[in-house]
């Protein structure tokens, strides 16, 4: 390996974003070096310019972005000044791209293998038969099930983790010198994430491909990258090899990123056996239409002032359980009780008082807030509906709520949601739920769309509010570090059933149910050797879907 040979050389790169006639700097004088066969991790929060920089290494900018200064060289070829033809000859052939969501980045109209063979055919690298044979070979190297057959399916017929591996195979189709991985596992469940990580790492090692690995997840980058570069709002914060960066970060910002994972509220003592639970689910089974149930015989209690985390992978029935509690989806059998009073199954039959007690905070604050209403109106509406306050009283109440969520009322009350950051929007979502003065709030993946620092702020706010108002939370999440941070009890769901339930401290100490064990052990840790150790322990064939289906 001639590791000294420089493959990508970016110098003093400046990229502007142009929206509504105004320019803003997205990448600010960044340098980047990448040698052959090396993996560079790019980390930072959303808006840090990671993807923009990664794409710029391909000589590509998205619509609305423009390279205004600096240079990008790939193997001695100037990509900024190159003609579109020159760039097209490199793209797909010598530089390939793996996108965040394989489900969205595979064309739904064509079979996977046709999309795989497209680049080699178009660039004149091989015949169709050769390209297809190679695709099947890559599929089996990446341990996709039925490698001979899977490529002849359409993307929607293949699961998310498998598609992501198929996309990695597609990037390999021309044996490029460089692959840009743009958050390739962010959209996946933890157990699926591992198999994709292993696949990417193996294939990159086998073919000595250089890679830029973009992610906001530090633990993932610790497994994947030789060196790490930290970005903040378009500026480089620091760069070092992975171990140095993890052990002794120089800059304050990097240290703060590292510190996020340490937030943890101690578990509260168990509720007394005689206490009345705020919410209890009793043998709830629910289904959509006439299909098979997606929630089967689920029972658990949530007590005053406590947080119950419901964890599980996508499709395990977490959100459906929440829909049953709110009355949006009346359960097929079973019942839901509020302080031992059985609630009507359908929200339309519940009284305003009953509706008031159960509130919800949503995952995507972006879509959960009406973009045409001002913050004051968004929060004011439940204040008026549930508490009957009007005029000056209503305004005072809204101002009080804004103070509770740590936003200055005079500054925010007349703003539109579009004028807020992601974290601020999520705070408004919390205020809207609080406006009803409920006893119980369902938090549906409230932090999963947020950066880690911002997410930590939200979790702290939720904890404080719980202390003040004796609130009970049901926390739906697939992120076990969030569970560690604020839960008191944990309910683990799989295929609509509860596989394990108990106090948090017990859940995080062995022995576990084997599924809980799989979930826990699949969460990447900051230790760069974690993935190797895990592979040694479990073996490459016992990861992700394969491991789940063995249960």
């Amino acid at each position, binding site marked *: 390996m001639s590791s000294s040979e420089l493959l990508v050389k970016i110098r003093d790169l400046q990229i502007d974003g142009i929206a509504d006639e105004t320019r803003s700097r997205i990448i600010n004088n960044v340098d980047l070096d990448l040698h052959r066969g090396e993996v560079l991790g790019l980390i930072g929060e959303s808006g840090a310019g990671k993807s923009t920089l990664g794409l710029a290494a*391909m000589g*590509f900018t*998205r*619509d609305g972005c423009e390279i205004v200064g600096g240079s990008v060289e790939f193997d001695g070829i100037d990509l900024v000044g190159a003609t579109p033809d020159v*760039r*097209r*000859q*490199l*793209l*797909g*052939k010598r530089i*390939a*791209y793996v*996108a965040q*969501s394989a489900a*969205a*980045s*595979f*064309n*739904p*109209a*064509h079979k996977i293998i046709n999309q795989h063979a*497209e*680049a080699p055919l*178009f*660039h004149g690298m091989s015949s169709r038969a050769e390209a297809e044979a190679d695709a099947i070979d890559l599929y089996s190297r990446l341990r996709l099930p039925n490698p001979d057959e899977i490529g002849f399916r*359409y993307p*929607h*017929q293949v699961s998310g983790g498998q598609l992501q591996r198929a996309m990695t195979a597609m990037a390999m189709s021309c044996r490029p010198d460089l692959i840009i991985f743009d958050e390739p596992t962010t959209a996946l469940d933890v157990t699926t994430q591992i198999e994709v990580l292993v696949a990417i790492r193996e294939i990159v090692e086998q073919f000595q491909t250089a890679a830029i690995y973009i992610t906001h997840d530090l633990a993932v980058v610790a497994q994947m990258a030789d060196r790490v570069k930290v970005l903040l709002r378009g500026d480089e914060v620091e760069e070092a090899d992975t171990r140095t960066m993890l052990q002794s970060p120089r800059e304050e910002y990097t240290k703060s990123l590292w510190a996020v994972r340490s937030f943890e509220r101690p578990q509260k003592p168990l509720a007394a056996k005689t206490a009345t639970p705020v919410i209890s689910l009793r043998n709830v089974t629910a289904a959509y239409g006439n299909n098979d149930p997606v929630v089967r015989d689920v029972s658990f209690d949530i007590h005053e002032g406590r947080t119950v985390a419901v964890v599980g992978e996508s499709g395990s029935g977490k959100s459906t359980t929440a829909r049953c509690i709110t009355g949006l989806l009346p359960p097929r059998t079973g019942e839901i009780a509020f302080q031992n009073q059985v609630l009507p199954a359908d929200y339309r039959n519940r009284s305003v008082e009953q509706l008031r007690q159960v509130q919800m905070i949503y995952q995507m604050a972006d879509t959960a807030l009406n973009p045409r209403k001002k913050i004051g109106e968004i929060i004011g509406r439940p204040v008026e509906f549930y508490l009957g306050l009007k005029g000056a009283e209503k305004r005072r109440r809204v101002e009080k709520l804004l103070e509770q969520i740590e936003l200055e009322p005079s500054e925010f009350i007349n703003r539109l949601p579009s004028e807020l950051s992601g974290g601020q929007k999520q705070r408004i979502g919390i205020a809207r739920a609080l406006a009803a003065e409920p006893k119980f709030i369902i938090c549906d993946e409230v932090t999963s769309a947020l950066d880690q620092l911002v997410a930590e702020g939200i979790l702290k706010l939720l904890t404080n509010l719980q202390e003040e108002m004796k609130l009970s939370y049901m926390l739906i999440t697939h992120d076990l570090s969030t569970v560690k941070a604020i839960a008191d009890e944990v309910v683990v769901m799989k295929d609509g059933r509860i596989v394990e339930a108990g106090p948090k401290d017990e859940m995080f100490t062995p022995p576990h149910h084997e599924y809980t064990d799989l979930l826990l052990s699949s969460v990447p840790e900051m230790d760069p050797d974690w993935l190797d150790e895990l592979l040694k322990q479990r073996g490459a064939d016992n990861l992700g879907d394969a491991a789940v289906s063995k249960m």
Partner: protein
Amino acid sequence: MNNVAMIISKRLGLGVLTMFMVSVIIFLAVNMLPGDFAQALLGQSATPEAVAAIRKDLGLDKPFYTRYFDWLVGVLQFDFGTSFAKANFSSYGGTSAAANFGTVADQIAPRFANTLFLAGVTAAIAVPLSLTIGVLAALYRYSIFDRIANISTLTSISSPEFFVAYVLILLLAVLSPVFPSLSNIHDGMDFATKLQKTMLPALTLTLVVTAHMMRMTRAAIINLLASPYIEMARLKGLSPFRIIVFHALPNALAPIINVIALNLAYLITGVVVVEVVFVYPGVGQLFVDSVKIRDIPVVQACCLVFAAAYISLNLLADVMSILSNPRLRLPK
């Protein structure tokens, strides 16, 4: 495929139901037209006895629901009744109205065949043309070509049909006589002559329908250009043409097919003006004439044929949209 069969049979059922409701509406609407055939024929000075006699002869004195069911039963057997205008002569001849004179079906069938011929020729020109222009406009969006394509198609759709028709006659029949300005085709003609005679009305209609289809093609494609799979295609180094044709177009087919179906339906049902200008013997003219003389069976039959054309074309569009989408065609 089971899934698709299910969707299609559901749509078919709905189509039949729609046809039934349309038949009720047609019957009600036609019967609410002021005046009736007897009065229209005999004029204002007719004696009430004479009017009553003709009404009895044609069955117009029966209650309207009886007439509706008589008509419906006939229609289900493809018997659209007898044209009043033709039946009338028989009543003068002293025989009953149901004598063996030309039925409505006999009257409409050749006209409808002509209408389909004109629509077919137009579609054969207009659909490939507008798809091509639409794809090219999407490919070279905001270029001179795109602008000219937009402006010219919009101009032709904004001009009245008869105006477009006369401009074409002036250019292609008078100034440089390529095509005849009269399109009086009949059964005895061979295909080539028929085609030549049909060309001017077909070109007129092409100019009228192209804008809509072309602009939908362009918009549906451009709408997809921001999708991640298009970015992926660009990052594979593919040529812009291949990206549009291979990656964007297949996913844009559903809205395009629907607009094409709407325009084809228009070609069958909405071409009266063009038929009049070119003296083309289509259903449109027959329809207008029949309304003028209150020839109710013909009017009803025409309406029904138009409705059937609309419904079946939309049904076809639905089915093709489903077939063009692998996610609907092959469920998980």
